[in-house]
């Protein structure tokens, strides 16, 4: 019962997302552990596109505007293209796609716990518990 309800809500969200044009949600901050070295933008893009396993990336939930926004700003590609690229990698055993973090708090907790983790969230949600390595406007 609960699962159906959640799926229904997700389906509605997906329909709404397709129906409305992607509105910029504001600046996005890419964050890592406070003491971790700062990767370059190219390195961040490589990690999120599966070309590098140097870091462990975290994604916003699939279908969320934040996720679509992040990929569009970082790589210029939309969700379907990212999915295609990851399909090539996943189905060859070369790697697995970024794990999902439910919200900004989950991202902050994950990067604080692992020096190799990297995630993104609304800039407004970033605080001193994490290090901002890139801002995407």
């Amino acid at each position, binding site marked *: 019962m609960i699962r159906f309800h959640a799926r229904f809500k997700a389906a509605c969200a997906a329909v709404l997302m397709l129906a409305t044009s992607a509105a910029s949600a504001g600046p996005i901050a890419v964050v890592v552990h406070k003491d971790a070295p700062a990767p370059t933008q190219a390195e961040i893009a490589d990690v999120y596109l599966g*070309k590098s396993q140097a870091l462990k990336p975290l994604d916003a939930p699939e279908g969320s505007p934040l996720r679509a926004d992040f990929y569009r700003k970082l790589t210029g590609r939309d*969700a379907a293209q990212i999915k295609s*690229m990851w*399909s090539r990698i*996943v*189905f*060859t*055993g*070369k790697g697995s796609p970024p794990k999902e973090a439910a919200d900004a708090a989950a991202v902050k907790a994950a990067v604080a716990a692992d020096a190799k983790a990297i995630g993104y969230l609304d800039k407004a949600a970033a605080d001193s518990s994490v290090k901002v390595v890139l801002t995407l406007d």
Partner: protein
Amino acid sequence: MIEPMPTSPRLPRRSIAWLAVALLGTHGAGAQAQEFHTSGFGTVSAVRTDNDGAQYRIRADQARGADKTVDYGVDSNLGLQATATFGDRVSAVGQLLTARKNSANIRPRIEWLYLQGRLADGVDLRAGRLVMPVFLLSDSRNVGYAAHWLRSPLEVYGIYSLSSFDGVQGVLQHRFGETSVTAQLSAGRSEGKLYTGLTGDITGRRIRGLSLTAERGDWTLRVGQTVIGDLQMVFDATPLGLGTIALPTVRDKFTSYGLQYDDGTRVVLAEYAVRRQDTGGADSNSGYVSAGWRFGKVLPYATYGNLNPKGNQFTFSGIRTTKAVGARWDVARNIALKAQFENTERHLQFINETPSFTASDKRVNVTSLSLDFVF
């Protein structure tokens, strides 16, 4: 009668047992953070040609193909993949692929099943059943969703018989500034099935492969060579009253060059393949170029393929070309629709030819529609 792409048969039971023991052993050794992840992909396609004189297929193990009657089994497949991760260093990957095998059966086969260990940063070792890393897109050839085109050009992807091998593979990766370089060394043996009018088995022993891939930004360049020390084909010719025919063993050397550019809007792919055997029977030069441009969710593309058969084992002579146009539409999440119209001619992947088709050597138009998905 040349060897296009057959299946990989069942992994020997001894190897499955070995892998299972290895997996259990790792688990029992108290490896931390174990994860298990499953995913899948599939294609449903409909193919039709304008000529009943032959049937169009995409792999050498298919005993049936499309003609003027629409065929739903040519490209259709379903893949299931499972990955088990044991901590940071060890993982096991298995992929089961169901696709048309011969005219009667659609059976799942183990496409790959291997154990992978990270020996050091950038150094991975794999053992088990692995994909033959012959082409730029060998690894994802069956995943329709991963490619812009409806099917990989047969002038290149359709001329190599063996798709998986049992053995070991080392993968070394290093980043030099903006460029990531990967070297892949493979060794093992392989088996497959063929259908050329007669059913047959193909075996490759003493396989050695080396490939180098360089990736920088939107560019990928790959050079690879695979040598099969002993390649043998054995056919069941009892329908002809000839019993079993075993062709002499040959040494097969296959070199491929691949280039890809994909900036999210424009995609260009080109590959060139050179095959040389010590007896020269299946020697060929072949290649293709494919280019597409993305407009929102739609990506129209065109592909040109060219096969120059140099050996004497081919049943056709002269350069064979294919011209195709198509489009991909990312219609919904995880689903892509594709259409492809190609103008081609008698080549390796036409089977069950009538004598008049063989004699006419007419060009054939092939219309294909597919739905690719991942889950």
